[in-house]
């Protein structure tokens, strides 16, 4: 069905979508308020599982936010015209998702009311502290970048702006990954692999989010993505999925063979109940193998909606992987006395369980609500729809590179 732009039906649909987004956001905020008021007793988090569901959502949003800007970078930094037309949408998504991710992290703080303190007191040795600078910087730089793209007078500056955004984005993801990489005492996180792994994960997840949004927007406007562009983006996604898989495997193998974290790896990969299930079933099978199959087998990838399905599965995999990484890494006991059997009233040496409570899940979903609403409104007010001038592209020979 084709919707005429700005027809009444289209207008109604817009309000319904924005309304749904707003509602999800409002429920999330209410959940946060409830948590703030009662304390974290109403969550499944505790002194063993210190970071829970809100962090899984927030870190997904932040990592994917940086990755989604990759689309723009390919356009400006590497000069690919097809991607350049997608840069504005990519920038908008990046800002929306980063804002959403940060909102979730902030609202989960024990003292969310002290936001001002977080901004006025700064500890230069803290990775979190660096991120306090990296995040607003990201908004600023992407904002300027969007401006250079969308305002003709600013066009001459779009290349340096794009380059700055590209560098800043890599720093940002390195910063996010390093939040974990600096936790030297925790078996799950003391790997140098983590920062690069986060960067490559951001590429894959960001592109998947972008392709989902792009598909929805094209459908909304009754348009079809040009098959050649579709095929190029699909190949890029497949490459990223494979790269993430490679990094995840290397991370686990180095943990097993070099860091000698065999007991921990055995838990995460084999014996740990939900965690191996999520890892193999959620991440490896649904999030990696199936999408790769869809994207690489020509008969499958030609089916309408198959690339969309593959991108969605990548997100399923992303969540599974983050859950295993963040929660699994804490459920497994900290080794205070290596090689000893320990027991205490504080659950030392004991594998813990974590059951997220409703408010914390709602808070996480509220983050999605924020990103969704911001995108829907942004796309509506400004021109973010990628417009491909196929003839021009073809005559310039750009479709081939």
């Amino acid at each position, binding site marked *: 069905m084709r919707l005429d732009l700005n027809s009444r039906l289209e207008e109604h649909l817009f309000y319904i979508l924005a309304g749904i987004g707003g509602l999800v956001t409002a429920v999330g905020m209410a959940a946060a308020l409830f948590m703030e008021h009662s304390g974290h007793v109403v969550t499944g988090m505790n002194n063993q599982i210190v970071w829970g569901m809100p962090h899984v959502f927030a870190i997904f949003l932040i990592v994917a936010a940086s990755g989604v800007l990759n689309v723009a970078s390919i356009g400006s930094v590497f000069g690919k015209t097809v991607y350049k037309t997608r840069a504005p949408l990519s920038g908008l998504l990046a800002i929306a998702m980063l804002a959403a991710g940060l909102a979730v992290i902030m609202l989960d703080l024990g003292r969310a009311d002290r936001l001002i303190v977080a901004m006025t*007191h700064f500890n230069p040795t803290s990775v979190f502290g660096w991120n306090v600078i990296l995040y607003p910087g990201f908004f600023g730089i992407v904002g300027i970048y969007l401006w250079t793209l969308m305002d003709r007078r600013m066009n001459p500056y779009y290349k340096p702006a794009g380059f700055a955004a590209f560098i800043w984005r890599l720093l940002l993801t390195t910063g996010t990954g390093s939040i974990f990489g600096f936790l030297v005492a925790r078996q799950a996180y003391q790997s140098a692999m983590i920062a690069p792994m986060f960067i490559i994960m951001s590429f894959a997840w960001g592109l998947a989010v972008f392709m989902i949004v792009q598909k929805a927007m094209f459908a909304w406007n009754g348009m079809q993505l040009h098959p050649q562009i579709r095929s190029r983006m699909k190949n890029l996604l497949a490459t990223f999925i494979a790269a993430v898989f490679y990094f995840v495997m290397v991370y686990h193998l180095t943990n097993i063979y070099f860091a000698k974290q065999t007991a921990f790896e055995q838990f995460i990969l084999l014996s740990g109940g939900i965690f191996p299930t999520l890892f193999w079933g959620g991440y490896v099978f649904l999030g990696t193998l199936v999408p790769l199959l869809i994207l690489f087998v020509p008969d499958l990838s030609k089916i309408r909606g198959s690339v969309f399905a593959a991108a969605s599965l990548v997100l399923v995999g992303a969540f599974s992987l983050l859950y295993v990484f963040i929660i699994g890494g804490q459920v497994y006991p900290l080794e205070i006395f290596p090689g*000893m059997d320990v027991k205490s009233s504080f659950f030392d040496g004991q594998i813990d369980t974590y059951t997220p409570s409703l408010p914390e899940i709602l808070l996480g979903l509220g983050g999605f609500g924020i990103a969704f609403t911001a995108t829907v409104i942004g796309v509506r007010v400004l021109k973010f729809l990628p417009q491909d001038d196929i003839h021009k592209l073809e005559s310039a020979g750009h479709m081939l590179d």
Partner: protein
Amino acid sequence: MNEPQDKSRRALMGKAVTAAAVAGAGMGVAAIAPGLHLIEVAGAAPRTAGEAASNTVRWGMLIDSTKCAKDCNACVTACNTENGLVEPIKDARQGSQWIRKIDLKDPKNGREHSLPMMCQHCANPPCVDVCPTGASMKRADGIVLVDRHICIGCRYCMMACPYKARSFVHQPLTTQNPEVPRGIGCVESCTFCVQRVDKGLKPACVEACPEGAMTFGDLNDPNSAIAQRIAREATTQVRADLKLNLGVRYQGI
């Protein structure tokens, strides 16, 4: 060895504690008039009211796990009473524990022993490194504290601490000890009973241990009992591989 010296020290400390208690009672809680000299007990130079903690002192603790009795919980109880950790909580995993007893068993030879575990007051504390606001801090005399005025409750320090020494307050509190403020949404951990140490007293756990398994004092003062024992006897730091230079040392592990 240094038994006699230790005994006389203990007697001296006992007297001084009583004196401090009497003085404290006379003045009301926490009333230290300006100019009053704090009584020297724990082994450092006396600190005058109005004087800042100094980095010439480094507070430390030596725990002899061979003396620590397996089923004894006296130090934990004393800590909870002193620091007002008395609030009931439904899920024990959300409750605060500043000090806890760990029972260890060596699977290779079956040897069992027990020890109290708490904040190790690292000289290079990871919790301080990672804290985004600077709420986690190390005082000049080596005591690691959380400044709850600027703690935002992000729990990054809990993730970073190698000893699981920190707890997050999950619910509103009403039963605080006036001298030990603590509350909802902030992270907390053992303070070496800073409110007592500043008065010249020993931490509550050290005082409560019936076996005398814990020694508290100034690691920087070569004449202190703790420094002398560390100089003469074999002591270990837990997870010494992390090179955090701990204020708490153990024997017999």
